[in-house]
């Protein structure tokens, strides 16, 4: 039924002005900045990177679409950019030689289990890309830890190749810093080039699309703990700088742990969350059975976010004052 209106004026509650930010704008900015590690992955891993990235993004969008349609939701949510981010992030955490079918499974699980079963954007408890990655890791542990060297490194034995962290943990080999910075090492698609990750992270920090407390907290904690261990026994433990540059720490600290939906909403909670991730990373890297633990650390701290939010309410202006 057509509604009749007495006047042309719109009525609403205050405020009548709105800022310029919007959810898709934030999402597409992040997508744009993710192009930095994407570029490095394509440069170092060539067609493999392109293949994995494309499959991951397409399957993510497709899964999202299926859920939106079957739940009779607004289809335009498909283009809010969040599914694309999940697709790219998942791809960036995968080893470059991974079979396409695994990528499909991973992307599907990311969106379906990581996001849509909770009700879609804004409601998920865990970082969707990492849920997909953890599922793949548990399903196909061998394939997920088989690394191939970057295409520009003309290696004879191209079948297997160790990541810097794996190399250190199992063979005690330190990858040169130059390689770590540029990205000329083994590893998952997006984690190798430290320099691009740092640049991207800094842009996000300037745009305030990520909370500065999270990367700061994580990196400082790792640096301090690893530094302490290094001081105790430089023979056994690696230089803290190596730990920060190697592996997925930068990718995790700037792009994964900072996922708005799955990080705490209170400042104090955010600090605890960040430090918690740092501690777990060191714990798993140094004492655990796996060389890398960024993914697990973030997922575990994601689980604590509701509790952190609940118990770290900031002090209201004037709270506790005498009346």
């Amino acid at each position: 039924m057509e509604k009749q209106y007495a006047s042309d004026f719109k009525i609403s509650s205050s405020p009548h002005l709105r800022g310029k930010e919007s959810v898709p704008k934030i999402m597409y900015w992040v997508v744009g900045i993710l192009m930095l590690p994407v570029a490095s992955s394509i440069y170092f891993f060539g067609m493999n990177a392109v293949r994995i990235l494309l499959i991951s993004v397409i399957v993510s969008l497709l899964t999202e679409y299926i859920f939106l349609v079957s739940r009779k939701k607004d289809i335009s949510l498909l283009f809010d950019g969040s599914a694309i981010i999940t697709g790219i992030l998942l791809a960036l955490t995968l080893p470059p030689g991974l079979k396409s079918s695994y990528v499909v499974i991973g992307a599907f699980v990311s969106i379906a289990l990581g996001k849509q079963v909770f009700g879609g954007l804004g409601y998920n408890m865990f970082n969707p890309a990492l849920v997909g990655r953890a599922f793949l890791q548990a399903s196909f542990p061998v394939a997920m830890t088989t690394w191939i060297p970057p295409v520009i490194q003309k290696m004879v034995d191209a079948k297997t190749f160790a990541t810097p962290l794996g190399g250190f943990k199992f063979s005690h080999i330190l990858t040169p810093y130059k390689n770590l910075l540029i990205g000329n090492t083994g590893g998952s698609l997006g984690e190798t080039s430290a320099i691009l990750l740092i640049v991207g992270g800094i842009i996000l920090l300037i745009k305030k699309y990520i909370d500065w407390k999270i990367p700061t907290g994580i990196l400082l904690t790792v640096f301090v703990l690893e530094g302490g261990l290094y001081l105790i026994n430089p023979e056994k433990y690696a230089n803290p700088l190596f730990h920060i540059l190697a592996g997925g720490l930068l990718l995790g600290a700037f792009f994964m742990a900072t996922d708005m939906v799955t990080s705490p909403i209170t400042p104090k909670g955010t600090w605890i969350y960040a430090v918690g991730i740092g501690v777990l990373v060191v714990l798993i890297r140094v004492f655990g059975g796996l060389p890398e633990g960024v993914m697990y650390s973030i997922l575990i701290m994601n689980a604590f976010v509701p509790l952190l939010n609940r118990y770290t309410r900031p002090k209201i202006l004037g709270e506790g004052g005498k009346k």
Partner: protein
Amino acid sequence: MSVLIISIITLGALALLFAVILAIADIKLRVEVDPKIEEIDGILPQANCGGCGYPGCKNYATAIVNKGEDINKCAPGGQEITDLIAKIMGLEATATEKVVARVHCRGTEEAAKRKGVYEGVKTCRAVALVGSGDKLCDWGCLGYGDCEEECPFDAITMTDEGLPYVDEEKCTGCGICVDVCPKDILELHPIDENIMIFCRSQDPPKQSRAVCKNACIACNICVRKCPTGALEMGNNLVEVVEPEKFTEECYGGIDKCPTGAINFVHPEKIKRENKTVEIIIKKKE
């Protein structure tokens, strides 16, 4: 053989030990709970609707036993439950008449204009906070369906015309919708009561006529046509003061009402010679 004996001794000793401990504990730590409470709680429908005024059935049961609360407050349970509680409490139940929620507004989208395009939270209670709602009529139904959403028994649906429709079969008279509605459109009435004023507006006639085609304009015709005293003119609004007195003598007033603000809730129940009264509110298809 010895294994068997030892088994029996061991288990027996253990059992005895714990039996003694528990027996002592039972005496020392016993908490008295009136069995009547549990019994009544078991009877109550467990809808936890809060219609009785207590948070949950168990609290109502406790209140009946401990505070002597009336036993006829469970609307969803109806007479049946009241009788059962009465049996437990050893009382004679006072009969409760079934009441249902009814909609005191006919300000359909077509009849009552809105002020302007409203942007914001789409619930009646939130809309009501923005300049007392977006309907031009300050008394009218806002039509965002809070009653539909809050009704625990799915008895209310919003019609295409933008008004709530109450399914009187399903309605238990719990009164949640009455509480929820920011405009007090809904009110509980005995189910047998048939005559009703479908308007709340106490605005001066000129104002109410300007904002809603179906508003009561206090023309007084229906009151004059009704010699039995069933109706009275209130503050710019007719009031049904004694519904049982609205007899055949008064029916003429309904025909004469210029806006249809006074009418039967169930016109089909009224046998009349020459006039068929249209059914006012249609259920959503």
